[in-house]
């Protein structure tokens, strides 16, 4: 089709394509672009008091350029938070996705019993909101009320504090895995069901065992779904907030800046400094985008077969 023809077509279509686009554009502008713009605006301002700050007109909002950003990246606690989150993300990603993969493969194998029940049972925790899940687990971690501690005692583990600095990370990871495995398992399982059975048949004729089929046929064919779940999980774990925030009141080991997002919350809603919070949240957004993009770049060709 020549450009002239295309132009003619576009003219005939008139405003219609724009009208189709309008709802999406309007919604995007209102609920994504505008808030981000406002955040960027706030991030370059600060409240300045004079004197005691109590009289009239002793409070002014001033423009400070990139000062808030400088303060955000210069704060050691911010990077310490990233380090904690990195440890958390490493554990959650490997354990949760590993479990999800194992469960999906098991459910897909022909010989499993109670498949439907197991599928629902594994998925169900995903339907429990994060705050509720963390509260439930949090109470289980408290010694005098908890069957968890009773069980540990039965195995000879006495007086372990599940909420002290050396253990609280694992306690959080446990909540995340409990809540997240089901969803990832379901994504992988759905993808598995979409693979034509012929491949397995062919493999079996070639003498492959069930294990070999799982590892050498199923897993490679699952690659796109694995990429998807990994990217989602990276984003979710980097933004960890609910678990530490909910455990904080019952543990002495979770500071108000445990994760980067908690620092944003503390700045904005405890210290009343929306401006620093805005700057920090934009820095976090930037940092979160990078690993996701890197991962996508790394696996794109393999997983989606995008060859030029």
């Amino acid at each position, binding site marked *: 089709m020549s450009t002239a023809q295309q132009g003619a077509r576009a003219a005939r279509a008139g405003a219609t394509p724009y009208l189709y686009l309008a709802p999406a554009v309007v919604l995007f502008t209102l609920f994504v672009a505008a808030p981000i713009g406002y955040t960027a605006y706030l991030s370059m301002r600060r409240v300045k008091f004079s004197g005691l700050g*109590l009289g009239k007109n002793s409070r002014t909002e001033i423009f400070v350029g990139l000062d808030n950003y400088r303060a955000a990246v210069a704060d050691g606690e911010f990077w310490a938070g990233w380090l904690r989150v990195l440890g958390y993300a490493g554990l959650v990603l490997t354990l949760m996705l590993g479990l999800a993969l194992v469960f999906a493969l098991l459910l897909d194998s022909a010989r499993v019993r109670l498949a439907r029940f197991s599928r629902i049972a594994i998925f169900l925790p995903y339907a429990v909101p994060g705050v509720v899940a963390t509260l439930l687990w949090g109470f289980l971690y408290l010694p005098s009320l908890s069957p968890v501690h009773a069980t540990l005692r039965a195995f000879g583990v006495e007086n372990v504090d599940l909420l002290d600095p050396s253990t609280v990370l694992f306690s959080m990871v446990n909540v995340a895995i409990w809540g997240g495995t089901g969803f990832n398992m379901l994504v992988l399982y759905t993808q598995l069901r979409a693979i034509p059975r012929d491949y397995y048949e062919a493999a079996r004729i070639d003498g492959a065992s069930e294990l070999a089929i799982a590892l050498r046929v199923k897993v490679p064919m699952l690659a796109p779904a694995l990429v998807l779940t990994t990217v989602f999980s990276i984003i979710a774990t980097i933004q960890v907030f609910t678990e530490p925030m909910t455990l904080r009141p019952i543990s002495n080991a979770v500071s108000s800046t445990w994760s980067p997002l908690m620092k944003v919350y503390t700045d904005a809603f405890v210290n009343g400094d929306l401006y620093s919070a805005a700057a920090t949240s934009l820095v976090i957004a930037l940092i979160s985008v990078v690993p996701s993009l890197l991962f996508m770049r790394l696996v794109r060709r393999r997983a989606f077969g995008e060859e030029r």
Partner: protein
Amino acid sequence: MRTKRLSAALSVLLAGALVAGCSSSPEEETPQETGPVELTFWTWAPNMDKIAAVWNEAHPDIKVTVSKQAGGDEAAAKFLTAAKAGNAPDLVQAEYQMLPSFVAAEAVADIKADVEGVRGEFSDGIWRLVTLGTDAVYGLPQDSGPMMLYYRQDLFARYGLEVPRTWEEYAAAARTVHARDKSVYLGGFSSKDPGWFAGLAQQAGGQWWSITGEAWQVGINDDATKKVADFWGGLAKEGVVDTQAPWTPEWNAALNGGKLLTWSSAVWGPGVLSSNAPDGKGKWAIAPLPQWSAGENHSGFWGGSSIAVSAGSKHRKAAAQFLSWLNTDAKAVDLLIKEAAIYPAAKSGQQLLTTAPEYFANQPDFWQQATTIAGTARGFTFGPNVNVAYGAYKDAFDKAVQQKSSFTDALAAVQDATVADMKKSGFTLAS
């Protein structure tokens, strides 16, 4: 083609609706000429809606609608955010320590001219908390929280303990009790309750903030407060006080099951004990806080709040009228005591407290005792960034409790964080 046109029309409609939806906010500007003045009221006091209903009944021209809030630090943050967004309620409950930050954010109105008549109803100490030592009046006091020692009468008898009169005796008793039974503590240190620690600092004579001329002075790690921090730091290091986070099911179980023999708390304690430790009914009693030296008689405040009128309210006069009624009218204060279970700030209200709370049936003179103790409580001026100081307290003391490290260092960290924040915000600080 028809479907195409239809969907085009739909998208126009949708876009139109969205645009209309976001441009139709400021329509409440016009004052209603008929109908009553409508006031919204954010509070966490229980049953406040019932009290407002009594007012509404008698005042058809001013209608108060209560919106129940969760208390705690988040309540202040929520109000400040709402005020910034221009959606603040007309009336807001503000803990005394949060009022200065509301004033600094220009979120509450000066109601001096509207409440002139009720000044005499409040003691000077309480009144200072709503004027912040300035000429303005930023709210009316509602309740106060003088601190006292709650103790298990029955278990004190069983362990052969005397009620400690000094902190020294308290420390000795703490060692005795814990030595007798490793699962039992005399009391606890809370790294989660900066307000509690502030009250103990007030008892010791600390002055966390003060105004000299036109400058703030921050003394969070003054000698008096250091003494308090050192005392608890020592006991925590020895392991003879409980350092678990309070307000958890675990803590409730300890309080309920006789694993904690005392609770240094405030006059609002009966409400907490009756719901969190129901089995202790008739077993707890109150006594003055232990003193720093024998023969002294001081206490501090933990909690207590005022009601302020937000700066954005269009009905300041009506709001102030309701406030004066709520906190000084005999009938209203009586309702506050009975329905909202508060210890009223108004002087006249304290005479209305006669029968001891049901939970303290074993101590018929509960209120006489409480009123005597309340007379010994001393407060201090709160600064404009109490939220920052309190946040820093939780982080620093959480860590100190965990690592059994120096409480005085933790206190210094709180002081530093508070001063740094005030400097950054531009407040003038006395050198």
